[in-house]
């Protein structure tokens, strides 16, 4: 099982993500944004949190057009797994790999705290270890996490079971309390919260660990 974690100038959760991938059993390589290809045999790509390119223009906008983004898009088109927390989610929406966009938090403040998430769909590799409706505690740390999309898109995401997680108490104004969104084949997950920051006993919270274990399990089964 091979994973790659993309690294952009300004990424700051890349190592946390690699630690979580490795703990789940993935052989993990870091891939610099100037690369035009992923390591051969990559099963899973992590698009980490942080402030890629200083959030210039729009969060994730420049990263979504960087050399490695084309390789990321090909990986997604081939049916590869992608896990993208926080800035990663912003990058995937900018790249058109997930629908919608992330706006400035409705309260205008950067929010850094642990929030409750309700697991809404358990048919993806990421979410199948959880119970449907289960509430897990996962940290958020963002300024632009206010998920928005047109009404038709929101209805489609709800109808197709593509909302992976909803906030129990929405901190950022997100439409329909949406915290995480899956691609139509459910192999690409973007979410604002950070499960990789709640996946080791030393974090004081391991509610996120099952997500990585679930990914490893799905890939072993392939």
């Amino acid at each position, binding site marked *: 099982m091979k994973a790659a974690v993309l690294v952009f100038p300004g990424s700051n959760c890349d190592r946390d993500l690699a630690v979580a991938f490795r703990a789940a059993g993935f052989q993990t390589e870091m891939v610099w944004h100037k690369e035009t290809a992923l390591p051969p045999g990559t099963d899973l790509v992590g698009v980490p949190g942080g402030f890629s390119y200083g959030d210039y*223009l729009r969060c994730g906008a420049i990263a979504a057009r960087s050399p490695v983004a084309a390789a990321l898009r090909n990986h997604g088109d081939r049916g590869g797994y992608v896990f993208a927390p926080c800035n990663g989610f912003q990058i995937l*929406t900018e790249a058109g790999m997930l629908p919608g*966009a992330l*706006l*400035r938090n409705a309260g*205008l403040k950067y929010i850094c705290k642990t929030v409750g998430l309700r697991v809404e769909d358990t048919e993806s590799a990421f979410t199948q270890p959880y119970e449907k409706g289960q509430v897990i505690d996962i940290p958020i740390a963002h300024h632009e996490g*206010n998920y*928005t999309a047109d009404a038709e898109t929101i209805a489609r995401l709800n109808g197709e079971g593509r909302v992976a997680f909803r906030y129990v108490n929405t901190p950022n104004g997100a439409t329909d309390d949406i915290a995480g969104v899956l691609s139509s084949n459910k192999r690409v997950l973007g979410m604002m919260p950070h499960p990789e920051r709640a996946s080791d006993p030393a974090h004081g919270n391991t509610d996120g660990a099952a997500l990585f274990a679930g990914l490893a399990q799905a890939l072993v089964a392939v």
Partner: protein
Amino acid sequence: MKAQVTVMLKDGVLDPQGEAVRHALGALGFSGVEGVRQGKLIELDLAPGTTEDQVRSMCEGLLANTVIESYRIEM
């Protein structure tokens, strides 16, 4: 040759920054400000012969996120 691209959040997309500016203007005693929308102005220095169509492609490809933003080009 210069082009100016104005990027604004689409109508109907909540602009919390604009709202905060509106509140602050009210707090300063400026009454009658019924709405504030905040956007971006991007100036492009272009080689002669660059067409508006090319600038439009730049807007669609990078300068605006058309999911949430609209743009206006002045050449």
